[in-house]
């Protein structure tokens, strides 16, 4: 490891909700609380009524096993829970049922890694552990925390299953953190355990230090997107203090995503003592090799394997395939599309990938949508590529109609709606045809030997008419004109 001056050391604790579970971690209330009437998805267990007891959701154990396998972690044979004791109004029992790897406890799985690529450099981000825990209730404030006259508590979220992924402090930059989270999100999606696009499904705590100095822990980063921002801010803050000759304190800081700064919450001497101790209401769950093997066998294809397969099957570059597989829905869309037309070959595979990764992805990013939020169907991209290749529209026009395609309109519908009605006036098309022949003597010459060269001429007519020329009539006219010139027979 390099011992550069001002070397940044980052460790992340990523909490993700297992949104694909039907029920909460310790009771049978619905896990799908979003949009529900506050405090409607509750029972004696998840609001911690006296006398209630937790009962483990077996599916959560299976989901955690899936993720642990996908992250290459070591699953512990015996899974047990600990209580993390602290008072807070979002806590139904004033302790959280969690897992702990000290005081005689063990995490769900130890170790594991995620390989990231940054500027074509590969790096393994080593994980410390993953573990399961319950989500606290949601505190709702009118306006901001500071100005709200009251706090409302919605227990619908209380008891939802969280899985925490803790990295070793091996991340050296906000960009690496971003890449790590990108890959993690992808693996979670492929494992079919959660949809991290749901609001509030992700929370990140980050430990940040400049090597040789005290670290700070930044809490409350509520989306992957915010992580990079918060890290950048915190690094600059720490470096500035050092520049001014100040000492850094070991402290806990809060990420204020409105003001985009970190604020000190407490210093080391005021750190909470969580008094972790075993949760005896839950008996240890034995995880045997047979179970792990079964989960492994049923585990869907992971992004890394898929990328290798896409390279092989569709002749894509490593760069393209790695990007394509990142979002499983995009990759599924891709494969649905390119496989739906038998005439497609390597050129079309590449074209399809480009359309998806450039124009479509850009639009999705701008709109903050996923591909499944749109009405776009793979066959529309297939049509688009065919229209272009057949010269019916130009690439430039294609780019302008992508937006409408997202709404589910077919290309012909869009062209029509845009007033780009077909020109079938033979006189007019004759005029354009003659112009194109005059302007492109080389293509015309080519037509003598290459019957396909006529497509290029038709394309030019299409371009002149902004794609409005009727392709059939244009073709007939071009054939006639070339015959008249004696180019073809």
């Amino acid at each position, binding site marked *: 490891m390099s011992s550069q001056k001002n070397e940044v050391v980052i460790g992340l604790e990523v909490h993700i909700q297992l949104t694909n579970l039907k029920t909460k971690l310790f009771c049978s209330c619905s896990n799908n609380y979003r949009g529900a009437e506050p405090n409607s998805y509750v029972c*004696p267990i998840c*609001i*911690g*009524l*006296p*006398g*209630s*007891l*937790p*009962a*483990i959701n077996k599916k959560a154990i299976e989901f955690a096993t899936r993720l642990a396998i996908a992250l290459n972690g070591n699953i512990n044979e015996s899974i047990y829970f600990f*209580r993390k*004791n602290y*008072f807070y*109004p979002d806590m*139904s*029992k*004033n*302790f959280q049922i969690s897992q702990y790897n000290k*005081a*005689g406890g063990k995490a769900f799985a130890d170790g594991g890694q995620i390989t990231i690529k940054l500027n074509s450099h590969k790096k393994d981000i080593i994980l410390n552990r993953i573990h399961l825990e319950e989500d606290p209730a949601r505190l709702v404030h009118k306006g901001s925390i500071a100005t709200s006259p009251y*706090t409302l*508590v919605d227990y619908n979220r209380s008891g939802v299953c969280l899985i925490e992924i803790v990295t070793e402090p091996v991340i050296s930059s906000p960009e690496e953190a971003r890449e790590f989270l990108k890959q993690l999100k992808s693996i979670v999606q492929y494992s079919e355990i959660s949809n991290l696009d749901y609001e509030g499904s992700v929370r990140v705590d980050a430990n940040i230090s400049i090597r040789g100095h005290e670290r700070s822990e930044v809490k409350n980063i509520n989306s992957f997107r915010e992580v990079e921002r918060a890290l950048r801010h915190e690094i600059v803050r720490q470096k500035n203090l050092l520049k001014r000759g100040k000492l850094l304190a070991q402290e806990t800081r809060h990420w204020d995503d409105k003001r985009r700064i970190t604020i000190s919450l407490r210093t080391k001497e005021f750190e909470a*003592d969580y*008094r972790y*101790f075993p949760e*005896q*209401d*839950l*008996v240890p769950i034995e995880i045997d090799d047979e179970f792990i093997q079964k989960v492994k066998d049923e585990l869907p294809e992971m992004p890394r394997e898929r990328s290798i397969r896409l390279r092989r099957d569709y002749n894509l570059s490593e760069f393209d395939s790695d990007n394509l597989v990142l979002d499983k829905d995009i990759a599924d869309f891709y494969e649905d599309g390119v496989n739906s037309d038998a005439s497609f070959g390597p050129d079309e595979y590449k074209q399809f990938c480009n359309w998806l990764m450039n124009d479509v992805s850009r639009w999705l990013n701008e709109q903050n949508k996923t591909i499944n939020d749109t009405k776009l169907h793979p066959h529309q991209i297939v049509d688009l590529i065919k229209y272009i290749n057949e010269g019916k529209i130009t690439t430039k026009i294609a780019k302008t109609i992508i937006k409408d395609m997202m709404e589910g309109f077919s290309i012909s519908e869009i062209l029509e709606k845009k007033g780009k009605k077909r020109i079938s006036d033979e006189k007019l098309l004759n005029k354009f045809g003659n112009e194109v022949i005059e302007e492109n003597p080389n293509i015309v010459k080519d037509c003598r030997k290459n019957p396909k060269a006529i497509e290029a001429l038709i394309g030019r007519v299409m371009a002149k008419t902004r794609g409005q020329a009727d392709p059939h009539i244009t073709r007939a006219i071009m054939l006639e004109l070339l015959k008249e010139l004696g180019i073809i027979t």
Partner: protein
Amino acid sequence: MKFYEYMGYELIEKIKNKELSIPELIESCFHRIEETEQILHSFVALSKEKALEKAKSLDKDLEQGKKIGQLYGLPLANKDLICVKGFPTTCSSKILQDYHPPYNAFVIGKLVEQEGAIHIGNTNMDEFAMGSSTENSCYGPTYNPWEISRVSGGSSGGAGASISSGQTILALGSDTGGSIRCPASFCGVVGLKPTYGRVSRYGLIAFANSLDQIGPITKCVYDSALMLEIMSGKDPLDSTSVDMKVDKYTEELSKPIEKKILGIPKEFFGEGVDNEVESAVRKAIDKLESLGAKTIDVSIPHLEYTVATYYLICMSEASSNLARYDGLRYGNMSDNLSGDVYDVFSRTRGERFGPEVRRRIYLGTYALSAGYYDMFYIKALKVRSLIKNDFVEAFNKCDSIVCPTMPLTAFKVGELIDDPLQMYIADVLTCPVNLAGIPALSIPCGFDSNGLPIGFQIIGDYFDEKGILNIGYQLEQELNIYRKMAPAAKGGK
């Protein structure tokens, strides 16, 4: 004879034979409560109207030939920490005043909903089951029916007194370090703490969740066996409940015990055990020998560490179990809401928990704190497993262990309340059973010179409730004192 002088199983026969109707029984039971409650104070809340209503409806069902469950409308007094849907369940604490659980505990479902017992009210207890005298109740103590200047034992003191005075026929208690057996011993009734995991704890408000277990308090061993048969079994809502066949305990009671080997642990007869208690227990052992049982000496060498170990563990767990009482979701909050949320939580807990509960929360919090955890909690867990091993070793040599339940008979109200350590030491013979997680039965075996009952404890191997009930029944029949009613029960003030 009054109805309340009969055993539960005898009343069931009378009801079946139409010698007695269920409403008659329940009426007489409330009549008895009216007669005695002023002096005893066993109950914290009564459910007279509902009980009478249910009695009528069961009676009607019975007349129409419908099945009404095995308990035929017998009255059941519930300890104030087992949840009964819609009925105030307060742990005899100010912090849970007016708390009405929205659900029934597993055992209430079994005994009341399924097998036709009638819930007549909730009995008094030490606040959150913390105590051995029922003096730590926010409602004041329950007095001993044998001598009303004395305590009824604890923490299920209300249950013990209600049975021994004939206010009810069946009662539920909970036992964390002796809370069923201590009042059974002091009140001269039968109390059974089942194996940890035999009875679901779902709906039992936790004191120390690795030790708590619900059990019956009854007039006789047969009724105890009958209740246990119904209450036992796997409950998916309690992960620690065990999926194991439930024995037909009532059918095993009359089996001869001539082949039984009884272990006598010398440590349980050591210093601190009252002479009269020891001699009564020894006499009872002689009776068992006369029935053909053999006795051998066994040893529980770590007994001297049990009280310290027990209190470290139960206080640590309690500090966490009782954290939820902040007044936010149920129960009540301090009237003074000034300051931030932590101020209000602290004030609420400071005002609404009694001194013994606060003491245990402080000590438990301390024991779990960084820097002390290994020294106290972890060490206590280690000693706990040594104690467990002591019992495992002993049960390699014997079928059951016999000894006193309490080292003394009921003490005077107020006598030990200012000396918590002395009070804690009174649990020395009961709490090792909870640490090991094994079952134990307490039955009356005689009286001291003050006329106070003496409890005889039979400790069994894991899930051998069958064995200890069998021995208990044989001894009970042989001693034949189980029909003797407490003086307060005779109506005298």
